[in-house]
Structures are given as structure tokens and as C-alpha cells.
């Protein structure tokens, strides 16, 4: 489908032309209008251009009439014409071509005279039965004159005798030639349609297409302004601009003069060819430096030679027939070389070559029409060259656009694909990480239990075994040691229970475990705990340290003092919590105990507290000892 639509567009102008032709032919069959194809003609010489007289009797002219079949397109001596054009400001002589058409059985009613083309570089005057009825190009030709059909209505009110003769007076310079298509005389309503179709296809439609191309070119320019690295957009703008300038003379109603406008329209053709060539080079990716340089040199040379101020080669219709073949040659060379380069590498290049070839062919037919090589009733097809350009390059842009969309979709799809891959990777690495973490946790836990068993349970059991083996221990003592071991074991198990950051629950568990021991000892336990903030860092390792610290503290009281009462209290302080264990025993010298080797229990408590970033402190006096465990709210 991508290729079918532009192809359809390419056929549009051809279809339009065919339709116009059919319309034209149809009107030809209309018996109401007269098709005048026979005329007599002669040339007279004058010293200068003169205004046509209001009456001109054909019989008054020299009797040198020669018959001719319309369309009338005498051969032009191009070199002589160009020479005269470049020779001087004023022509050496003025010639007048007279064309006399006899009319038989002219239809009655409101009549119009219509001719596809009348071409001269002087004035046009039309006489009907000797009376001046129509004048054109009174101040010389305009740029669009050769594309403007001859058209006027005849004032033949009732009683006027029927038209018998039509006489055309065409003034022109000495070296140039005139041309005239066949004429049609008939009712206004019958002839208006073919006249308007001709005018529309020759002037208005090309103007519209040209403007459309220019608009797309401006769009491309703005794209290029934001994307300077993509020179194709700038080239596209150059193409549109030069094609637009080149097309101007098809429909601009300015008098033909050797001025900047003439210079622009002539040179735009060379620039257009150059732009297409550079574009082609970009497509087939071969620099072709020499050809490019040659084309630039020719364009520059023509540009300089045709400068209005220099007037070496005036950009006048008399001279341009000699200039345009250069452009056609340039175009054909670019076409052939570009075609060879692009043939295998670039489908787009081939398309542009076709387009350029078509434009060149159109230009050549224009040249032939302009120079009376082909019938004056032909079409100026060169006006459609911008349209061909537009379609060709429009198709390229259309393809690029579709490709860009496809690319974006592809990139998006691959992005999604990559995202999925990354997610899977992330999942896998997360899984790996979790496994490592799990292994680490298990390893930490094992190490913790090993350490605890080694320090507590293990050493107690070993010393008990030694004592039993030596036989110097009582059964009660063995039982006590084993009970202590079991308590140790229970606390180890409790430390693994989920206490969920609740220090009170931990202390409660400890109390629950120690209760049977306390009951037997006769020491009263006063439970004076207060609400505590949650300690988020309270994991099994920290829990066991805290349990051991408090256990040791209570064991010390039971072992070394004669206390009758233990108070356990908790307090929330500024940046932590405090656990206080106070007894009413005898007290002890803290500094001495710490310094002495016997204070291993105290040192252990201190070490365990440090490993949870906490502190321990003893305040001892005659009334008893208060042990304080401080724990932080948060740990770094």
C-alpha cells in the first residue's frame, strides 16, 4: 500500500490532462462553433512599433498573401534571434506578421473568438471585417503570455452583417518569429468551457501545485532548523524554493524585461537541477565531486552571464532558447550518472532519477513548443515539473515518515523487551541476595549459639563432669549445676522466640523462667516495670545478650548477697531505656570487683552490653546494690 498511493498521485496530472483533452475534443465535435484552420499570411517591415490603426482593410496590404494551415508555427533561426537579442537595446527593424482568416457561414448570436495560443514579442491586434475588435500585449508580452489563450467576445448586435474575415496583426522583432494556433469562432457559451479548462490547466493548476510544494518546502526548512545535521531537509527546501521560482513565469503577469525576475526564473532551473543532483548524491552515497563541481561551475557561469547589470546574455525569450539546452544537458548528465550510481544501491535514488528524467522531458517539450518545433496547440508541460518534483520527493518523505514510525515502534518494543529482561535479572539477583542473606542469618545464628554454649552451658557441664569424676562433689551440687544448665538452655530457646521489639516481653520471659528458682530461694521479687518504647533493633542475638546480662545480675544477687528482696524496674529515658535491678543485700566494692579477676561475671555483663551498644553500671552502698542496664532507642 505504501507504494500504491504515491503512484496514484503520480497519475493525477496525467488524468487531469486527459480529462481536459477529452473535454476539448468534445467541444470540437460541437457543430455550433466554427473551427478555422486555413489562413493567408504575409510579413511586412516597419521602422518601429506603432499602435494599430482602428480600421485595417486587408485589401490595402500588399498582395503577397501565402496560404497556410493553422496552427501556424514558422521555423525560427535561433542563433540569429539570440544574436539580435544580445546585440543591442533596440531591434534593427520591426516586422509585422499578418494572418487573414476567411469565415464562411458564421453562426449568429453572441460570438466569441478563441485560440489556444498566439505568440509574438510585440503587440497583438485582431480586426473583424476591417474593424479593430481586440488588442493584447499592448506594452509588449508578459511572462505568462504564451500560456494565456486568445479570447474575446464579438459585439454583433442584431442587424450586424455576419463575420466574413478575421485579420491578425502581430508585431515582432526582426529576428524572432510568431506562432498561432487554429481559431474557433462560435457562441460564447460553447467556447467558454474549453477556454477556461485551458487557462486552468496551463496557469492556475500549476500555480497551486507549485505553492503546495513550496509550503512543504518551508515545513522541511523548519525541520532542518531544529535538526541541522540532516541536510536532506535543507536540500528539500532548496528544491521546493527553486521549483517555485522556476514556475513563477508560467503564471506571473509581469512584462518581459531583462530584470532580476527574469534572471531568477532562468537561473532557478539550473539551481533546481543542481539541488536534485546533490539530493541524488545523498541517496546513492557517492560524492561524484567532479560532476558536482562542473554543475556548480556551469550554474555560476550562467548566473553571472545572465546578470541584468552585465547583460552579456540577457534572460530574454529571444536568448533563453540557447541557454535552456545547457540546463537540459546538465539535467540529462545528472540523470544518467545518478541513475548509474543509484541503480543497485538505492530504490529512492531510482525514483528521483525517474522524476528528474520526466521533468527534463517535460522541459524539452516546452522548449520545442516555445521555439515552434512542435504545434502551437501543444501544452506547456514544464509547468508540471514542480508537481512531479513534489510527488517524487513527497513519496520519499512519506516513506521516511512511515519508516520513522516503524522505527519508533520497534525501539519501544525493544525497550519493553529490555525492561522485562532487566526485571528478570533484578528478580534473580534479589533472589540470590535473599539466599545469601538467609545463609548469613543461619551462619550468624549458629555462631551466636556456639558462642553462648561454649561460654555457658559447655563450660558448666565440663566443670561438672570433672568434679563428678574427681568425686569431690555432692549430688545436690550436681543437680544444681544441671538445673543451671537447663535454665541457660531455656533462655537460649526463649531468645529465639519472636519478642517483636518488646523489651518488657523479654524481661517477662526471663522472670517466668527464673520464678521457680526464686521461689525456692526465699527472696521476694518486686516487679515494677513501666511501659517502654519499642526497640526495633531487638533481634535474637541482642535478646540473648540482654537475657544473659539480667540473668547474671540476678544470679549474682542470689549467689553473693544476703538480700531478701529484688526490685526489677524499667524506665524510659531521653534517648534509651533503663532496666534497674536493685537488691537490699550488703553491697560490694564495684571498682575492686571489676579490677579483680573475680569480677569475670561483671566484665561479661559489660562486654555483652557493649555489643548491643548499651552500658551497665553498679551503684552499691550499705543498703544494697542497684544495677542499671542502659539500652539505646536506636542503633546505628
Amino acid at each position: 500500500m505504501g507504494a500504491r498511493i504515491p503512484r496514484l498521485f503520480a497519475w493525477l496530472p496525467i488524468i487531469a490532462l486527459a480529462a481536459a483533452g477529452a473535454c476539448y475534443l468534445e467541444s470540437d465535435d460541437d457543430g455550433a462553433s466554427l473551427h478555422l484552420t486555413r489562413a493567408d499570411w504575409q510579413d511586412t517591415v516597419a521602422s518601429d512599433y506603432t499602435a494599430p490603426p482602428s480600421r485595417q482593410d486587408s485589401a490595402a496590404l500588399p498582395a503577397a498573401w501565402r496560404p497556410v494551415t493553422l496552427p501556424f508555427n514558422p521555423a525560427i533561426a535561433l542563433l540569429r534571434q539570440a544574436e539580435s537579442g544580445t546585440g543591442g537595446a533596440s531591434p534593427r527593424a520591426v516586422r509585422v506578421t499578418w494572418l487573414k482568416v476567411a469565415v464562411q457561414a458564421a453562426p449568429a448570436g453572441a460570438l466569441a473568438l478563441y485560440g489556444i495560443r498566439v505568440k509574438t514579442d510585440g503587440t497583438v491586434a485582431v480586426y473583424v471585417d476591417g474593424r479593430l475588435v481586440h488588442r493584447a500585449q499592448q506594452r509588449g508580452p508578459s511572462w505568462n503570455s504564451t500560456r494565456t489563450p486568445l479570447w474575446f467576445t464579438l459585439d454583433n448586435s442584431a442587424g450586424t452583417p455576419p463575420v466574413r474575415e478575421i485579420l491578425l496583426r502581430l508585431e515582432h522583432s526582426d529576428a524572432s518569429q510568431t506562432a498561432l494556433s487554429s481559431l474557433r469562432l462560435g457562441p460564447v457559451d460553447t467556447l467558454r468551457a474549453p477556454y477556461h479548462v485551458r487557462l486552468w490547466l496551463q496557469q492556475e493548476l500549476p500555480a497551486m501545485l507549485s505553492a503546495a510544494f513550496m509550503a512543504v518546502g518551508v515545513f522541511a526548512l523548519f525541520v532542518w532548523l531544529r535538526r541541522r545535521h540532516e541536510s536532506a531537509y535543507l536540500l528539500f527546501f532548496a528544491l521546493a524554493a527553486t521549483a517555485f521560482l522556476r514556475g513563477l513565469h508560467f503564471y506571473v503577469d509581469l512584462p518581459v524585461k531583462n530584470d532580476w525576475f527574469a534572471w531568477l526564473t532562468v537561473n532557478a532551473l539550473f539551481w533546481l537541477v543542481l539541488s536534485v543532483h546533490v539530493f541524488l548524491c545523498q541517496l546513492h552515497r557517492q560524492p561524484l565531486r567532479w560532476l558536482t563541481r562542473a554543475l556548480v561551475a556551469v550554474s555560476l557561469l550562467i548566473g553571472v552571464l545572465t546578470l541584468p547589470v552585465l547583460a552579456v546574455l540577457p534572460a530574454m525569450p529571444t536568448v533563453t532558447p540557447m541557454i535552456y539546452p545547457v540546463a537540459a544537458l546538465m539535467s540529462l548528465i545528472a540523470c544518467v550518472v545518478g541513475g548509474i550510481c543509484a541503480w543497485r544501491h538505492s530504490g529512492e535514488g531510482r525514483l528521483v532519477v525517474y522524476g528528474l528524467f520526466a521533468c527534463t522531458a517535460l522541459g524539452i517539450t516546452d522548449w520545442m513548443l516555445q521555439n515552434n518545433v512542435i504545434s502551437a496547440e501543444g501544452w506547456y508541460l514544464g509547468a508540471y515539473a514542480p508537481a512531479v518534483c513534489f510527488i517524487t520527493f513527497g513519496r520519499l518523505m512519506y516513506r521516511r515518515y512511515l519508516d520513522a514510525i516503524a522505527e519508533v515502534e520497534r525501539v519501544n518494543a525493544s525497550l519493553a523487551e529490555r525492561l522485562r529482561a532487566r526485571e528478570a535479572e533484578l528478580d534473580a539477583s534479589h533472589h540470590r541476595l535473599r539466599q545469601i542473606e538467609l545463609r548469613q542469618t543461619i551462619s550468624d545464628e549458629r555462631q551466636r549459639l556456639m558462642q553462648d554454649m561454649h561460654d555457658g552451658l559447655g563450660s558448666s557441664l565440663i566443670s561438672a563432669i570433672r568434679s563428678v569424676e574427681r568425686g569431690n562433689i555432692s549430688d545436690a551440687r550436681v543437680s544444681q549445676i544441671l538445673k543451671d544448665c537447663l535454665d541457660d538452655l531455656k533462655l537460649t530457646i526463649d531468645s529465639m522466640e519472636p519478642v517483636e521489639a518488646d523489651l518488657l516481653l523479654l524481661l517477662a520471659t526471663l522472670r517466668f523462667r527464673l520464678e521457680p528458682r526464686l521461689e525456692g530461694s526465699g527472696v521476694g521479687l518486686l516487679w515494677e516495670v513501666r511501659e517502654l518504647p519499642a526497640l526495633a533493633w531487638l533481634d535474637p542475638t541482642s535478646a540473648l545478650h540482654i537475657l544473659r546480662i539480667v540473668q547474671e545480675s540476678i544470679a549474682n544477687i542470689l549467689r553473693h548477697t544476703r538480700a531478701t528482696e529484688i526490685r526489677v524496674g524499667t524506665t524510659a529515658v531521653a534517648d534509651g531505656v533503663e532496666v534497674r535491678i536493685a537488691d537490699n543485700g550488703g553491697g560490694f566494692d564495684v571498682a575492686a570487683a571489676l579490677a579483680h579477676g573475680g569480677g569475670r561475671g561483671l566484665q561479661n555483663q559489660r562486654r555483652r552490653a557493649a555489643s548491643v551498644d548499651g552500658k551497665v553500671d553498679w551503684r552499691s552502698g550499705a543498703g544494697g546494690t542497684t544495677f542499671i542496664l542502659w539500652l539505646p532507642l536506636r542503633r546505628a
Partner: protein
Amino acid sequence: MKQTDHNDARPIHVAIVEDDPDFSNALILVVDHAADMRLAGRAGTQAEGLAMLAGPPADVLLVDLGLPDGSGIEVIRAAARLWPGCSTMVSTNFGDETHVMRSIEAGAAGYLLKDSSPSRMADEIRSLASGGSPISPIIARQVLARFRHQPAAPAHQQPAVPDEEAPALLSQREKEVLDYITKGFTAHEIASLMELSHFTVRTFVRRIYSKLKVTSKAEAIFEARTQGLLS
């Protein structure tokens, strides 16, 4: 005090399912020494235990979980069905949460730490027979979490926050008791804090256990339904 309570009444019939002969013997010694208790039966395996349940029901059944031919949980479950009036007690080394919770959910009313002193064992049996149940802080926390379905919230906030999720399941007083236990207070201390008798505190715990059994059964049925095991 305990002696006078039970002397006149019918003695407590105690049955034992235990494969460890040492503990079994120690227990039998406790029962024999207590005037208010009588050994009603003794089994060493799960099979014997289940067979014993076909006979006349005892008042207190002591079950060990690690039996040579299967789990004691099956015995507890069967006892709940066949001896509905009997209070079952699981005997455990450490009273750890997983063992005890599972047993309570199966229908046990309490647990006995195997290293308890003989007098404490006798006290526990008596307390159980008269409708009380023991509890540890960790178990209390687990029970609260089970009823709340929010195991993360700290228990000491419990009284302040009215529980809307399970108001029909645990009463405010029951939750209060559990909360005190998680803070380390003993049954006696809680009794004076809440102006109850300490025995009432223990019966509260029994009621909580039976509710836990019901919820766990409901949960099991719900679970089975959602997994398509029951139609």
C-alpha cells in the same frame, strides 16, 4: 490448703501417655504422694494412649508429644473428642511456643514443664483439674496475635486501643489478663491489679485456650474450603 480442698471430694483421676520411663515414674510418684490424686491409666505409645481413651475417662490426662509411634497431638485430639470432661496437659521440656500452641489448638488445656519440682507438678495438676490453665508471656503474646491477626503491634498498647477485629472472640478482661502476662506479672499480681482472685485469672486463661481451639478449628475449615479439600 490444697489438701483440705480435695480431701472430702472425689480424688483427681490422672492418666499418663509418656514414653520416657524416668519422667513417667517421677510423675507417678507425685500422684502417689498426693492424697487427692489417683493414677487412672498409663500408656507408653500413641496406640496405647488411643486405646486407653476407649476406657473410662480420667480428670487429667498428661500427654508427651514425642511418642515412639506417632505424635501426641493425635492423642490430645482424640481425648478432646472421647473424654470431653477431661483436662489434657502436654508435658514439655521447654514450654516453647510451637509445641504448646499446637497442643492448645488440638484441645489441650495446659502444659507441664518436665523439670518442674514435684510440688509444682502436683499444683499444676490440681489447678488444671479445677478449671485453671497455666500460661507464659510468650504464649500470651502468641494468643493475642492469633486473635488480632496483627502479630506486629506491641502488646502493651492493647488496652488503650479497642480491638474491633475480634470483639466477639476475646473479652476486654481476657485481653487485659493476657496483656499483663506479657509484661511479666504473675497470676497473683494480676489478680490484685484487676481485683480478682488468682484462681479466676487462671480460669480466664482456660477460657481463652478453648476459644483459641475453636478459632483454630474454624480457620482450618476455612483454609480447607479455600483449598478445595472440603466441598
